[in-house]
């Protein structure tokens, strides 16, 4: 059996679906963050797969490297925000963060 493009894209699509589903249903902010990372990594799988199988060039991999570094910065900022909230409220369930509503 050989790895073909649809198989890899399928893995990416499943990861994307899981990530979006988790991000929309989970209440713990850290879990939501993890699901978002899943989404970003599904994008990386897509990019690398396209780069390897169709385009056969480094472009997709460069894109993936940028996505990785930006994702790290994003995670760092996100964790810092979560930390700021945890210090005051000692819990980070986003259901409980509900001061602002119409």
């Amino acid at each position: 059996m050989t790895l073909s493009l649809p198989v890899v894209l399928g893995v990416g699509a499943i990861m994307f679906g899981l990530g979006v589903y988790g991000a929309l249903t989970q209440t713990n902010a850290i879990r939501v963050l993890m699901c978002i990372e899943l989404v970003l990594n599904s994008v990386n799988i897509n990019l690398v797969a396209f780069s390897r199988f169709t385009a056969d060039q480094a472009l997709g991999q460069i894109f993936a490297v940028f996505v990785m570094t930006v994702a790290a910065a994003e995670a760092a900022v996100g964790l810092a925000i979560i930390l700021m909230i945890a210090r005051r409220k000692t819990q980070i369930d986003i259901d409980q963060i509900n001061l602002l509503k119409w």
Partner: protein
Amino acid sequence: MQQYSLLLPEIILAGLGLLLLALDLTVSSKRTLAVAGVIGTLATLAAVVANFGAPATEIWSGTIRVDAFAQYFKLIFAVILGLVFLFSGEYLERREVKVGEFYILVTFATLGAFLMASSLELITIYIGLELMTISSYVLAGMLRNDARSSEASIKFFLMGALTSGVILYGLSLLYGLTGSTHLAEIAAGLAASPNASLITAAGVFIIAGFGFKIAAVPFHMWAPDTYEGAPTPVSAFLITASEAAGFAALLRILLVGLAPALPQWQAVLAVIAFVTMTFGNVTAIVQTRTKRMLAYSAIAQAGYVLVGVAVATPESVSAMLFYLMVYAFSTIGAFAVVIMLSNHVPSEEIEDFKGLARRAPAFALSMAFLLLSLIGVPPTGGFFGKLSLYRAAVDGGMVWLALAMVLNSAISVPYYFNVIRNMYLAEGPSTALGARPGLKIALGISVAATLLLGVFPEPLVGLLRTLHIMP
């Protein structure tokens, strides 16, 4: 060396950010930072204007594109940045925000917006988008002692990061379909591609993702909370610069990259525009807090601007670019008044405007004028902007959307007039209110520009006619 002169605005802005970083460590007076910021912004503006006449050029293997379209957006961003530097100081000091960090982050966020506008290449657009939004997440949470600010920040972050992922997924599909990350090559590749369903999927992800970024209904739920909870200068920045940058990138991707598939999206975009303006206006009527009212008003305004995208003719694009400029000035000016008021009355309720006409006549008059511009009453710039959007929609064959715009302008009258009524007719405290010179200058610039764009729109309209989004 020509490429560096074309990049000069970005280079100056990046240098300004790094300089502010160093100044924040070494200088104890934070007003020095604001002064340095204003000077740096003026230099950036000068560099942007100097590049206006240059022919459209792509540098660094097509990653950066310098054309009139990009320069126009950079002009908007730089002006907003300058006004933010001018009017934020007192507010930030009163609320014990770390002023230096605020100035640094807002500079880098603007740099991100610059990059989004000046590229036809997906990786650069993505880097610009993230530079802008990641800085904005922190900015939204800068009132560390205010739980609402933290909440604004976490909501903004979780939705923003997820939608960045969704946009990226769409972009990765575009790359896979065409083997390129340059929008012009993507358009050529898509025209030849038989994979209609994948193109549609990419379009769905990209439109939904940018729908979040520009706070279009039904992707708007984070926006009112974020705009209300964030520090007021940050709300002003997000509602104007961040939104305009989202439109810049959306325009490029839809009208250049997805051009072959565009006709199938126009109806969808028109419906989104209609729902966005109607929802924003109707919800704004019942608001009692100033910033939340302005947040829903911003959603409604995003709906008007989206009309320009949906119609997708050269006229509609130049009409929406004009409207974005007017909108930026009117909104920033209105926020300057809100900031002045909340420096004295921290509650930020619409009721606080009671009696403002006697407490600070010049501010009240400016606010009334800017709100009239947001409604679209002559002789303000808002009137001319809406008129040209209306005309473009009729000429583009979307008469119903044009009618919806007119109806919506009527719906929006009560909540804007509510503020004016409070200022002029309601009884309130009578102590006089004042502000620092910076805020007064910022307000003066906003009002003057809004008036100028309403009375003499021709120079800008002429400029916009020469400006092409396509390569």
